[in-house]
């Protein structure tokens, strides 16, 4: 039923995407502006990028952010995958309602509440604030996103494959590693990437839970943005956007080639019969 992609439909799609992409595009363009005045175009220049790499505070913050992102995304992926397994595989256990509530609530919870409550926890147990408190906070709110992504994949998973492996004598761990994990791997990887970018982006929760010496890049950007728009900030933002875009493109290409390979294998299997 694609006969009627009307002019109105096309116009609303074009308008919608223009709205979504124009601001980002302008930001990228003006990061190459010669002038310090962000809104006046004075010719092409990459000098703000060079200045960026000499800004030690910014570089330190970027390094902290990447470390927090790598560690928290990895733990969040493990915990989120376990949570997804628990939710889809075990329909009945004590406190399941509370559990699913705790998995879904952080998805929409205002960040100020999550940030404040985690900070008060760390203060209550007298845990020194810094790298690890930010990381623990990020694991907690990103694992729920991982759980949702992995869960949607698990729901369309053919469980008879697992049962066959178990019948043939594989233990639950072997079955998971040999059968389940390879099938849900794309979702697990997507979950990791989502957790990593969410951690990279987070300002509010990091501001509450961070301590001295653990200033993240969004915190640094925020404190500079409050003073006004500068081409350096445009340059940092452009680099971040570029990094994310490259990651997403690589992921989708990998996904596509996996898909192609799977189709080819299936066809070969049929041809041999």
């Amino acid at each position, binding site marked *: 039923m*694609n006969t009627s992609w009307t002019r109105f439909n096309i116009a609303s*799609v074009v308008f919608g995407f223009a709205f979504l992409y124009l601001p980002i595009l302008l930001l990228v363009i003006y990061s190459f502006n010669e002038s310090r005045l962000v*809104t006046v175009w004075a010719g092409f220049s990459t000098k703000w990028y060079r200045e960026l790499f000499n800004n030690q505070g910014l570089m330190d913050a970027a390094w902290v952010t990447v470390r927090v992102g790598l560690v928290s995304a990895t733990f969040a992926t493990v*915990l989120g995958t*376990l949570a997804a397994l628990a939710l889809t595989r075990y329909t009945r256990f004590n406190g399941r309602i509370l559990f699913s509530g705790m998995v879904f609530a952080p998805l929409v919870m205002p960040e100020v509440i999550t940030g404040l409550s985690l900070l008060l926890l760390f203060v209550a147990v007298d845990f020194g604030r810094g790298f690890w408190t930010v990381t623990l906070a990020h694991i907690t709110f990103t694992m729920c996103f991982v759980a949702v992504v992995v869960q949607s994949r698990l729901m369309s998973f053919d469980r008879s494959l697992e049962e066959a492996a178990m019948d043939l004598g594989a233990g639950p761990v072997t079955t998971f590693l040999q059968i389940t994990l390879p099938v849900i791997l794309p979702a697990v990887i997507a979950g990791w990437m989502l957790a990593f970018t969410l951690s990279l982006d987070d300002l509010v929760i990091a501001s*509450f839970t961070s301590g001295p010496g653990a200033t993240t890049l969004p915190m640094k950007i925020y404190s500079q943005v409050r003073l006004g728009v500068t081409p350096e900030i445009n340059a940092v933002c452009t680099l971040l956007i570029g990094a994310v875009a490259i990651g997403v493109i690589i992921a989708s290409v990998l996904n596509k080639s996996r898909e192609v390979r799977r189709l080819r294998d299936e066809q070969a299997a049929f041809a041999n019969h």
Partner: protein
Amino acid sequence: MKLISAITRRLVIIVPYAWLLIFFLVPFLIVLKISFSEPVMSMPPYAPTIDLADGISGIFDAFRQFSFSNYLWLTEDSLYINAYISSIKIAFISTMLTLLIGFPLAYGMARAPSSLRPTLLMLVILPFWTSFLIRVYAWIGILKPEGLLNQALMAIGLIDDPLIILNTDTAVYIGIVYSYLPFMVLPLYAALEKMDYALIEAAQDLGCTPISAFWKITFPLAIPGIVAGCLLVFIPAVGEFVIPDLLGGSRTLMIGKTLWSEFFNNRDWPVSSAVAVLLLLILVVPIMFFQQMQAKSQESGR
């Protein structure tokens, strides 16, 4: 064999469960506790209300000492009540605007040739991967009095004097609609894509005008998507901090901003805890609704 399987089953449930209990539920109880304590000038800046060392009787004593002064303070100062009301108002209007822009977009995507749809879907998801802060920041350069929007409008002669948009509520609406648009479009698209468009043709053959066909068929079928999208926009928007702080003016009152400034500027932890508790009370109904919906879609997907 049975034993191993029982143990792994336990572990799969217990590990994430315990993590969420410690890092999600317990912190809320602490917020609740601190919201009932008196502020003091020290570090941490509140007087503990419960000391577990005193045992059961100590806890009962502590309950008698619970102080509602923070909540009384919130009701006495109209600033807080106004902030709550204005947050709900801003979030509600923004949600409606997002629906107004998101619906035609999602509908256009759902009617697009099926070969084009994965690309369009990818294009909606992509901005979600780029930083929230960056996307809000991008609007500052556009909306400033000497910004790109005003330059463009003056260049084509539509206006003579720059419009003042930045640091007003209008800028906050734009920021929320822009940032949360993908959250609205995705569930709408999911609902609209499943729809059988032969129904509309049938309705039109039977004499329905396109508009009445929309209200009688498309709209009712899209309601699950509309509800999901509106909740996904409304709930976080009520507690939004970054957008009102960067795009709104000093007179833009939003509760997330109030909480932030109570905490970071006034260093009044008990009052900011009380603000958080009341914010959560406002959101508890929509959040429960959202969870119910998630659980239901999970059941039907099985």
